[in-house]
């Protein structure tokens, strides 16, 4: 095992102190559930010199609270706890579904919400350091996936430098529900829209988020709204469980009779980052939600899609997935709409 320094501060204040005292040349890598970090350390993809274990310090940020207007999910809550929470399941079904359809029970029992949204891509070339070319792993080295096996790869938001998919599910629910995220770090606490957390790959695919050095996700804040109860997560994959999405859609729709009052849509398994489909939302707003409208909205979402050698089908599949999700949302039985 590659030796590394290991710290387990007791409180968040201690985490920040540890950050300040550490030499800036040795940045900390945070450990929460460990389901991504330890996997990638074993593969040699991540080789941190300092691991700061947040499991003690983060225990204050593991709560699930709903005051009728806002759902606050602590970033250290486990995926399984949130998926099974009755309020989340009843009032924010897209959140519960995105969590319970992800990974396996063992992983959901370990993984935290904060770690989940920061999970790294499953791109095979990123995960295997014997492939020299990976701009995400080694900036400037190239991209082995462009000419490789890229069925899994993204069709939205890619760049010439990186075509990796963001594979997470929960992030799509947060995108769709206009969540914001509370961050804590050496410079204090700040809140940003969740949509501002991830960065498009562009020319710097190794920089995946807008987190400042030493910053930690503390809370997810999700506003309630008429769309939240009419929401769902549709995940399409080759096998029925324990697989990343080939395509997925998180949709939340507020209806006024047959007419869409408000629609919020995010797409998963298809894009380089958690992907909000604003074009589709604009088409749906104030329209009758039928197959024709849903199809037009879905087509708009993929107008700028760029296929790779093995994944052209994902454009059509992504459209069909969104149509299916929208029609399913329209037909949901919802008590308060």
């Amino acid at each position, binding site marked *: *095992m*590659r030796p590394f320094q290991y710290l387990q501060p007791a409180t968040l204040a201690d985490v920040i102190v540890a950050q300040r005292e550490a030499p800036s040349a040795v940045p900390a890598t945070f450990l929460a559930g460990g389901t991504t970090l330890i996997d990638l350390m074993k593969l*040699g993809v991540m080789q941190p010199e300092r691991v700061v274990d947040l499991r003690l310090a983060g225990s204050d940020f593991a709560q699930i609270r709903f005051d009728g207007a806002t759902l606050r999910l602590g970033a250290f809550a486990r995926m399984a706890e949130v998926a099974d929470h009755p309020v989340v399941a009843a009032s924010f079904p897209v959140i519960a579904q995105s969590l319970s359809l992800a990974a396996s029970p063992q992983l959901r029992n370990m993984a935290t919400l904060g770690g989940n949204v920061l999970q790294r891509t*499953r791109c*095979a*070339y990123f995960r*295997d350091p*014997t492939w020299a070319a990976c701009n995400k792993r080694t900036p400037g080295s190239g991209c082995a996936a462009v*000419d*490789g*096996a890229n069925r899994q790869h993204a069709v939205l938001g890619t760049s010439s430098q990186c075509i990796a998919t963001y594979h997470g599910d929960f992030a799509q629910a947060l995108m769709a529900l206009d969540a914001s995220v509370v961050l804590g770090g050496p410079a204090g606490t700040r809140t940003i829209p969740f949509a501002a957390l991830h960065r498009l790959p562009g020319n710097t695919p190794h920089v995946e988020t807008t987190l400042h050095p030493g910053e930690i996700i503390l809370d997810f804040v999700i506003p309630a709204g008429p769309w939240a109860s009419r929401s769902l997560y549709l995940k*399409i*994959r*080759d*096998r*029925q*469980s*324990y*697989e990343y999405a*080939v*395509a997925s859609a998180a949709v939340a729709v507020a209806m006024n009779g047959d007419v869409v009052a408000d629609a919020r849509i995010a797409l998963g398994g298809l894009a380089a980052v958690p992907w909000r489909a604003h074009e589709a939302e604009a088409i749906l707003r104030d329209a009758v939600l039928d197959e024709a409208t849903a199809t037009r909205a879905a087509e708009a979402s993929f107008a700028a899609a760029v296929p790779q050698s093995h994944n052209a*089908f994902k454009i*059509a*599949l992504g459209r*069909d*997935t969104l*149509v*299916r999700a929208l029609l399913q949302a329209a037909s949901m039985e919802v008590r308060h709409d």
Partner: protein
Amino acid sequence: MTDTLFPAATGTMGQPERRYEAREKVTGSAAYASDVKLARTAHAYLVTSSIGRGRLQSFDLTAARALPGVIDILTHETIGDEIRQTPSIYGGGYMADTLRPLGSAEIAHWGQPVAMVVAETYEAAREAANLVVVSYAAEVAPVAGMGSSVATGQALDPMGFAVGDFDTAYRTANVTVDANYTTPAQHQNPMELFATQCVWEAGRLTVHEPSQYVNNVKFGLAAQLGLDPSRIRVISTYVGGAFGAKGFLTHRTALVAVAARRIGRPVKLVPTRAQGFTVSGYRAETRHHVQLAATQDGRLTALRHEGWEVTSRADTVAMGAVSMTARLYACPNITARVNVVAADRSTPGFMRAPGEMPYAFAMETALDELAHKLQMDPVALRRVNDTQTEPVGGLPYTSRSLMLCFDTAAAAFGWQGRPSEPATMRDGDWQVGWGCATAFYPTHAGNSAARVRLSADGRVHVESAGHELGQGMYTMMAQVAAEELGVPIAQVTVALGDTDLPPAVVAGGSSSTASVAPAIMAACDAIRRRLGIATGVPADVMPAMEASGLGTIEEFTEVRAHGTAPDSLRGLYRGMALPAGGVHLPDRVQFALGAQFVEVRVHRRTREIRVPRVIGAFAAGRIINPRTAHGQLVGGMIWGIGSALHEHSEIDTRNASYINANLADYLVPVNADVADVQAIMVEEEDRLVNRAGVKGVGEIGVVGVAAAISNAIFHATGIRVRDLPIRIEHLM
């Protein structure tokens, strides 16, 4: 809990006895090879090639050697000639491939072991392996497989055959089918990894390794190390799944043995899941060209099946199951041919129904295409062409109950009334389709020996170096001895998986029970004769035992399987007991047969494929234990779902590497993919195949499922997919 799943003992069905080692497995006390605790064990970790073809230029071991805890690093430069070049099983030897472990600077394939680090801990060994710097030279683009334009097929003439006049019959036929099919590379991925532990004591070597053939490891290792075989013992008490991957000697065993000798300590190696993709053989990708011709009433008049299989440059390996697909149905004009395509890949090997699965996918899908063209029910097409005489050599089947299987499974499935037109059944947003296929597996047996000891207190001990792969070998051995001697099964103890025991056949070719049960029966016969009890009828031996005044009776017997050469018993004592039978007998053919029916659902928009129902009926001679047989058949059918829809070792052609060598990305069915899977065991009596009347059920379950699923997908959607695995994009 009552057992409603398993038929009670009647006719050719034995008792559904509970597993002999159930408690050990459920409680975790069963010690698999890597669980065996040895004092002062050092840990090994493999370094494998990241290129597909070329040469090792140099190693920089400085950083690795400097890591605390590192004891030794084996490379082709440091190991010298400690391991000899020996032939592979395809050249009359013992190895799974002909490359010499750490034999030279040549790189023949991605994943080839190029070094092995030995350290005080697993973690230190792994880190040191990461620090080994390997420089490669003369890298040229590898031939990755079938699809490469550089690769060309080479015909294997001995595997081809012809009867009648195919060309004329095909040209003049009423109805024909002409189609090409492909299947991908697949890996067995047994849950238990390819662990090996070696310990030397006073010049004697003990190997703990999960194996389907402990005597192959023993004699092969003796040849590699230049040792007298009597100085080697191989122990494999439990095997956590094998599926063909643990059948023959791989590079790792000699490396671990040599490392243990060099450092004078036990050495343990557990290659990673990813390394397991090239530690042993695999199911290579195949291509098929099938042509069928028939009369308007469905009688086959011409059948041609040509297969192409990927092999390595070092070994010519082909499963060539045209020998079976051409013998399933009556047909006067047949041509069959097999080709290999040599690639820069590790040597393929055996994976559950090695040739039967891919060749059946091609033939049984082609038959469905023919049925559709004829507007004929697929079951009726099989009935019209059913035969008790195989059409190539005119030999009789020892028994064949194919149509009984079809009728039984069709009734259980509710096949009657199926609309013949595709894309006509719907359930909400899901298109529904039903398909079926024939399953077959040749009946094999090999030479085996057994020792049975009866004690005056009624205890019985049975020994034979067979193998417990999870299929129920312990239980079967106990059950046969209990029945033959008329004692309660609770009084029987069993030893297996150890080269110190009477030797038995390789646990391959679905032959374990068919080979070892007759040896146990013969030993029990000998005990009965010693006690003056008639053989061949049920009897309790204990009254005669008490009357005899004897303390113990022990009998050792060897049984030679039908179709083996008279001098082949010597091979039993040299790790060469390979199964015979199937289509390789001069006087007859032997097959277990089955019929498999599936229902699939395909979402009308997003095209996911789901398999809510699989029903198979199988006639496989006598079933000694319906419980363990049920497990094998259901497990095989679940494998069939995987072979059709999930399993695919994805290859990056640039270095001929597997890029999904982990269990998150190499998909196998999970519980959610497996809904209603039923195995029905049809009564069948076959006194010819072997004394036990057993045909074996280890592999037949997987054989027809992929074809049945592809046929059901056609029925659901009207889209014929001829390439596995069938995925969403094929149906868009």
